[in-house]
């Protein structure tokens, strides 16, 4: 079942790996304090922004580039750690001047622009809670998340504000300020809008971080849930110990490295590894304002001498389509380590890295809830292509099975599938779902956090992803809730019923496919199909809305009226639908 193993010899580039020998590191791991060598504040308190920025500026890192910003129009702009320190101080002072305090939620709806980093780190200095949203979401997912977060401040661009926020302002009573990053003229129709750069100039570049408890809330990341209401996973300041530890071991980030994480800032990866971990480790971050374009990307690696590159399977598979020769046409010899996250990386893509860049891609596994990489392929460890790797030192992962009485048992046999579980207690573990403590409690059984992912562990201790336990769809690295999509399809006047599944896709792993039945008097047509898709895209955004839609006269339901998505999925994939005993008897399963 296992493919050819990629063995590791030596240290390309001459830089020794941070994790020299996996088994030795696991054996030597001693207790929670080993999770990082992060210094603590003088009073023994820990703040993420202090660990990422402030502690560096007393030493030689002050003059080093923290952010290398590559604007859309070309060129590059460097921001040193010293400058980042002052800019984030200004943002923290700005929040304080606006009366925003500890625990208040600051939301960003931004691409990769300098203001994202200032907002994130300035928010953390003020001990407020930073919550990034995905700018490609449509107005409806954005409103829902702003509302659930109880957002007090939103940082965004004028275009995004006009298009996605302004019409919904009346439905967001807790929102006190909208800070616009690119507007010189603030609309008189928006009394809560302010122009960010003007305010920043008026504030003091000196700021002293107040004592921060390790358990103080720091980050809020929304992820999809099976009920359709997104879950707001809350992380605390102590998480930075794990960000740094995992960045060092799993991504092999060294001080002074040029590090490039291509993840969108709206996802947890964009914060944990797009901002915090590499700064905590003293790296220079590539901040690319542009969108995906393989040749431009190779050009960035060549020109800026990128050492560590953390990207995603969909992007890698699109690069593979373009072929190896194009990649080889660029000088990518600066690369030392390639990693991937978002969905399982297929073996061909792991190996393609070797052909194109002389280095394999290293897949790793984690979730919004885990806050950091927990299972990984390391630079020094042999890769079994297709495997997510082995747990970080200090992390205990297991495969759990359900007994007939519903209780859980730990599966010891190699390759027997079950639910992936992590022993609780690592520093970046989420601490609650915002406003939903019961939902949070349901994620744990005894000492174990249940991930909802099905996996197996082979005889050598490598973990292999099998699928999701629930109906959630993994598409281009996004986790999408069918219910959230179906709810919006049902708001189209012609739609009677809707069911949404993940259809296997060679590039995006899965794409969102909708099955729709129409109200009486409505007839299927190409025009109506496009109209319903357009309706869903306007509300949900391109990343969440269906890519395909088919009409069906009936949709399979249980006797209690619940949509049987797995039946549609089985039909789509040509697999067995499993137990059909609850299928509503008078529902013919036909198109």
């Amino acid at each position, binding site marked *: 079942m296992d493919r050819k193993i990629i063995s590791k010899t030596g240290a390309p580039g001459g830089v020794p790996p941070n994790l020299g020998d996996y088994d030795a590191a696991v054996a030597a791991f001693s207790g929670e304090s080993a999770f990082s060598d992060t210094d603590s504040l003088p009073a023994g308190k820990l703040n993420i922004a202090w660990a990422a920025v402030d502690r560096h500026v007393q030493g030689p890192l002050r003059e080093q580039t923290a952010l290398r910003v590559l604007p859309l129009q070309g060129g590059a702009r460097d921001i040193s750690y010293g400058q980042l320190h002052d800019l984030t101080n200004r943002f923290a002072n700005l929040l304080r001047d606006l009366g925003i305090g500890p625990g208040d939620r600051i939301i960003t709806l931004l691409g990769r622009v300098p203001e994202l980093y200032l907002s994130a780190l300035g928010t953390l200095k003020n001990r407020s809670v930073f919550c990034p949203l995905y700018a490609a979401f449509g107005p409806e997912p954005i409103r829902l998340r702003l509302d659930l977060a109880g957002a007090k401040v939103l940082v965004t661009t004028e275009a995004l504000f006009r298009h996605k926020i302004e019409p919904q302002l009346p439905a967001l009573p807790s929102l006190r300020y909208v800070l616009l990053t690119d507007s010189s003229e603030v609309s008189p129709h928006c009394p809560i809008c302010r122009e960010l750069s003007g305010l920043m100039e008026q504030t003091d570049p000196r700021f002293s971080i107040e004592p921060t408890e390790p358990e103080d809330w720091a980050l809020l990341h929304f992820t999809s849930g099976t009920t359709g209401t997104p879950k707001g996973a809350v992380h605390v300041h102590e998480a930075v110990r794990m960000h740094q530890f995992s960045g060092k071991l799993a991504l092999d980030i060294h001080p002074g490295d040029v590090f490039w994480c291509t993840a969108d800032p709206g996802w947890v990866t964009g914060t944990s590894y797009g901002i915090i971990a590499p700064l905590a480790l003293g790296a220079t971050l590539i901040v690319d304002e542009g*969108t995906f374009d393989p040749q431009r990307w190779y050009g960035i690696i060549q020109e800026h001498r990128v050492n560590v590159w953390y990207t995603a399977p*969909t992007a890698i598979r699109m690069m593979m*389509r373009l*072929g190896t020769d*194009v990649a080889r046409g660029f000088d990518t010899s600066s690369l030392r380590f390639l990693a991937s996250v978002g969905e399982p990386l297929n073996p061909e893509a792991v190996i393609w890295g070797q052909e194109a860049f002389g280095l394999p891609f290293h897949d790793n596994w984690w979730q919004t809830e885990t806050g950091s990489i927990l299972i990984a392929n390391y630079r020094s460890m042999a890769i079994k292509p297709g495997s997510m790797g082995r747990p970080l030192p200090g992390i205990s992962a297991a495969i759990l099975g359900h007994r007939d009485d519903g209780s859980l048992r730990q599966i010891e046999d190699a390759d027997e599938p079950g639910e992936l579980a992590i022993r609780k207690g690592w520093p970046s573990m989420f601490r609650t779902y915002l406003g939903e403590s019961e939902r949070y409690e349901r994620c744990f059984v005894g000492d174990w956090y249940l991930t909802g992912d099905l996996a197996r562990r082979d005889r050598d201790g490598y973990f292999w992803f099998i699928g999701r336990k629930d109906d959630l769809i993994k*598409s281009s690295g996004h986790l999408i809730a069918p219910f959230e999509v179906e709810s919006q399809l049902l708001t189209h006047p012609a739609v009677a019923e809707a069911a949404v599944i993940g259809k296997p896709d060679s590039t995006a792993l899965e794409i969102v496919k909708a099955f729709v039945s129409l109200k009486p008097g409505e007839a299927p047509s190409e025009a109506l199909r*496009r109209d319903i898709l357009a309706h869903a*895209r306007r509300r949900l955004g*391109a990343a969440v809305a269906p890519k395909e839609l088919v009409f069906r006269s009936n949709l399979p339901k249980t006797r209690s009226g619940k949509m049987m998505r797995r039946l549609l999925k089985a039909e789509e994939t040509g697999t067995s639908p499993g137990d059909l005993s609850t299928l509503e008897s008078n529902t013919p399963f036909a198109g």
Partner: protein
Amino acid sequence: MDEKTLSDLVLDSLTKAAPDIDRNLLDPGMNFRDQLEIDSVDFLGFVLDLEKRLKIRIPEIDYPKLSSLKGCLGHLGPILKDR
């Protein structure tokens, strides 16, 4: 194929991949992704649909040339001039 026919065909492929697009608001010289809500999967769907309709193979290396309406016409026009 004349430019009007080709332009209509390109726009139809684009709106098939992303039906929420208002083709009247499209700036022909501007990158689709900078002005429209389309992601990389939509763009791939658009190019594959163009291949199917035009019965041509578009190498991946040429995809960036198709990133605006003007780019599409400039790249595909000469290829299709005899059709």
